C-alpha cells in the first residue's frame, strides 16, 4: 500500500517545492487531486524531541520501513534539521547491527 502511494505521489508531484503543502504554486491538476490532503508536519519539532538517540531501536525502525531504507523527508514531513539527525542516528544504528542495512 505504501509502495503504491509512493509511486503515484512521486509522479504527480514532479516539480513541487517541498513536503509542506503550498497549494497556490502547484499545478492545477495536482491541486484538484489532493485537495483534502492532510498537512504534513515535523514530528520532532511538534514533540520537541531534544535528542534523537541511535540506541532507540523502535524509533529508528519507525523511520526505516520495509526494505530498511531511510524514510524520505518528502513523505514523512520531517524538517531538514531533524531529518539530518535521524539520518545520523540510523547510520550509527546500522554500524552496531541494531538495524539492518537492507532487508528483503
Amino acid at each position, binding site marked *: 500500500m505504501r509502495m503504491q502511494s509512493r509511486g503515484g505521489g512521486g509522479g504527480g508531484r514532479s516539480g513541487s517545492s517541498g513536503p509542506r503543502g503550498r497549494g497556490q504554486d502547484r499545478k492545477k491538476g495536482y491541486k484538484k487531486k489532493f485537495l483534502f490532503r492532510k498537512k504534513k508536519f515535523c514530528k520532532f519539532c511538534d514533540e520537541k524531541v*531534544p535528542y534523537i538517540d541511535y540506541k532507540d531501536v523502535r524509533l529508528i525502525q519507525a523511520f526505516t*520501513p520495509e526494505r530498511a531504507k531511510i524514510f524520505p523527508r518528502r513523505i514523512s514531513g520531517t524538517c531538514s534539521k531533524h531529518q539530518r539527525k535521524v539520518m545520523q542516528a540510523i547510520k550509527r544504528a546500522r554500524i552496531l547491527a541494531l538495524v*539492518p*542495512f537492507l532487508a528483503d
Partner: protein
Amino acid sequence: MLKYETIFITDSVMTEAEIDDLIKAYDQVVVSGQGKVLKVEKWGKRKLAYAIHRHEEGSYVLMVIECPADLVKELERRYRMNERILRHLTVRVEHESQLGPSPMMRPRPEREEPVPEMPVAP
C-alpha cells in the same frame, strides 16, 4: 576533557564473567589515562541485524567515559586488537540524556506501547 559514549559488541560465546573482566580491563585503561567512567551498561545478548564474521548474536556493552582525546584512540586500538570484539563505536556525548539510562534499559511495560507510526501519504 570530553565525554564519549562507547559501545562494543562481543561474540555471544563470551560468558558473563569474561565480559565483566573485559569491562574491568577497559575501566583500568580509562582510569590510568586520567579518565573517568561515568556509566556502564550491559545490554546482554542480542540478535544482530546482520551477521558479523558469521556471528548471528552478540553481547553489547555501553560505557560513557570522560577522558582526553588520546585515550579514545588507545581504547579503540585495544578494541581492534581483541578478536572477540565484533564491532565498536565511539561517539561524543551530545546530550545529557545519553548520561542517563539508555532506551535499551527501559522496563518492559513501556516497550509494549504501540510503535510510533509515521504519517504516510494517502
